[in-house]
């Protein structure tokens, strides 16, 4: 198992960050730096590492062995993972403002003085940071309470992110503070040669404010349609979507399976299952986010094909309400439909015994279903979708 030795850029107790990580693949190997964009796996001489630690430019990790790092390299030896860091003070302060970090820090398996970390693909870490920032911005714009404190805490994540800037601007105590913030944003952009313009920036911040006040996160009501392969959960999601759309409910539908098929158009069912399982293990938040972001969400969102508890937790972290609509079917029906879809009995068995199907069983055991639809032939999908729509609208 690779040994994680240190975090570069010495993240503080106050911050939540993506930072480069120093990893030694085996005892005799030279330590390498991962997580720097465009410079994956640069060798770091031991003397250089010691100097960085001595001069407080790096942070020593305790223990060292990391499952999260091992997973990053297990499938791709050339990957360039990064460390996600959450400082103790950041965690405490975020919790006190109603912005807990437990869900995004669930698999953290590394410790250092003042905080904890995990190693993950950069897309995953960036997705987690963004999701937290979105929640924080909502708190700033909606509650008003502790708004300035939350905005400055957002600075400890990504200070020049547009979400952080929106929060800083609109939480300013008066016009002069707002002007000072805007002037600083413009200086940073100008100095880093990013396009900038005062009017555009003001307008852009206002647009962002409006967008996030009304946007999907938190306010959007999600229905996750779940069901075994062959249970017609996809059909159910489509019909439920049509029922709601027909009633002029602002609804959007996305599908995990559809997203996977977009990624690998030529893959068969079993290969798509493998891909889905891999994305859940490697980058659950990025996976969930990628599926959700495929369409601009309305007030209601139907998510088809959820299978993993980890993804359910990610969705529950992103959205205030996640209902679960479970479609069940008899064994006979499931086998018959799968046989039509994948062919031989062996292939049917392979689909049914895949880890994603096992994950679904765990999800069903652990998550309360809001609507359960026994699809045993006594009622048509059309009929149960109608019931769902009625119940949903009433709720």
């Amino acid at each position, binding site marked *: 198992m690779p040994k994680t030795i240190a975090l570069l850029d010495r993240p503080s107790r106050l911050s939540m960050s*993506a930072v480069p990580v120093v990893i030694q693949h085996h005892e005799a190997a030279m330590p390498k730096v991962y997580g*720097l964009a*465009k410079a994956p796996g*640069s060798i770091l*001489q031991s003397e250089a590492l010691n100097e960085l630690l001595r001069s407080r*430019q790096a942070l020593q990790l305790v223990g060292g062995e990391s499952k999260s790092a091992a997973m990053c390299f297990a499938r791709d030896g050339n990957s360039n993972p990064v460390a996600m860091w959450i400082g103790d003070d950041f965690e405490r302060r975020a919790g006190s403002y109603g912005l807990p970090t437990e869900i995004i820090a669930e698999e953290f398996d590394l410790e250092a003085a003042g905080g904890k970390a995990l190693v993950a693909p*950069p897309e995953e870490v960036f997705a987690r940071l963004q999701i937290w920032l979105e929640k924080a911005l909502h708190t700033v714009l909606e509650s008003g309470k502790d708004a300035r404190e939350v905005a400055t805490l957002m600075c400890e994540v*990504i*200070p020049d992110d547009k979400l952080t800037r929106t929060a800083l601007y609109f939480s300013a105590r008066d016009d002069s503070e707002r002007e000072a913030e805007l002037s600083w944003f413009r200086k940073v952009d100008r100095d880093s040669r990013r396009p900038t313009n005062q009017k555009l920036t003001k307008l852009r911040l206002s647009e962002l404010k409006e967008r996030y006040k009304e946007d999907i996160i938190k306010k959007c009501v999600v229905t996750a349609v779940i069901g075994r392969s062959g249970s017609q959960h996809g059909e159910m999601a489509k019909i439920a979507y049509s029922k709601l759309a027909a009633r002029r409910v602002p609804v959007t539908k996305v599908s995990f399976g559809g997203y996977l098929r977009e990624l690998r158009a030529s893959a068969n069912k079993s290969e798509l299952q493998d891909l889905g399982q891999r994305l859940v293990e490697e980058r659950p938040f990025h996976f969930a986010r990628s599926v959700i972001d495929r369409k601009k969400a309305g007030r209601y969102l139907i998510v088809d094909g959820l299978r993993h508890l980890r993804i359910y937790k990610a969705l529950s972290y992103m959205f205030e309400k996640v209902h679960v609509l479970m479609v069940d079917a008899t064994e006979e029906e499931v086998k018959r439909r799968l046989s039509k879809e994948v062919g031989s009995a062996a292939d049917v068995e392979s689909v049914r015994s895949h880890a994603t199907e096992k994950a679904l069983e765990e999800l069903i055991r652990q998550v309360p279903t809001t609507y359960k639809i026994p699809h045993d032939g006594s009622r048509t999908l059309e009929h149960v979708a109608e019931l769902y729509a009625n119940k949903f609208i009433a709720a």
Partner: protein
Amino acid sequence: MDVIESAVGAQAGMNIDLRAGHAVLSHSQSDDGDLVLALDVAAGNVELLPRTPREEEIVTKAEKLLSTRRPIYAYVGFLHPELGTVGLIVAPGWARRSLFVAVRCDSGGLIGGYGGFKCVGEKCEEMLLEVAFRDEDLPNWSGEFQAEVKASYEGNAFNYVSGQTPNFEAWKDIRVECIRYAIDQGEMDRRLWSWELWLQDGPSPAEIEAIVLSPENCKRMERLVRSKPEVIPRNLRIIYGKVDASGVWWLNDPAVHNAFLGA
């Protein structure tokens, strides 16, 4: 985040007046020690002093070969993340005023036999003398550097500052062997061909064109701007490192590369 790439191809055929990069090290016990030192130097409150070398014995050996004093080191058009989290980008005037040795590569790496320099072995001291400019040879360094960039990067200095491997086959010194060795070993490092400057004193505030910050130092800067804005020199250019879905960027992104070109 959008970064404007400058049309640096326009450098072709022009005089290449690259800025120097120096990574600040404060040896402070405070997490914001390096940032505070960089701001103090930029404000003219303190003078930048030579860093204590990481490997004193090796560095001292190199220094004794070429001079009698400890320099402030800088690279031409380059800041290495291994050397720090806060960098200074300094105008060419610093080197014109204060330079006493220039080397075609990293002198400490060459004497210490690190990475691609490992192949040099016992002849490292002789080789260092061969790739260094000092005394009466010193004024030639700039012309030699420009000629090398023009010949090895088709005149496009952006390729040098962004760390691309040069067309080195026509070179006549030990670096050719070192780069080939590094390629074989999978240990490529731009310090094999990045030019190093030895300067006798620190840059003046007017010579400091920008400070470059790692993402964690950007957070420290944000705290300062809201608590003690007076410590940030008014006209100092500040280049932020960033984090995005491709990883962490600091000291090595297009904004920094362009700053080395004066853009």
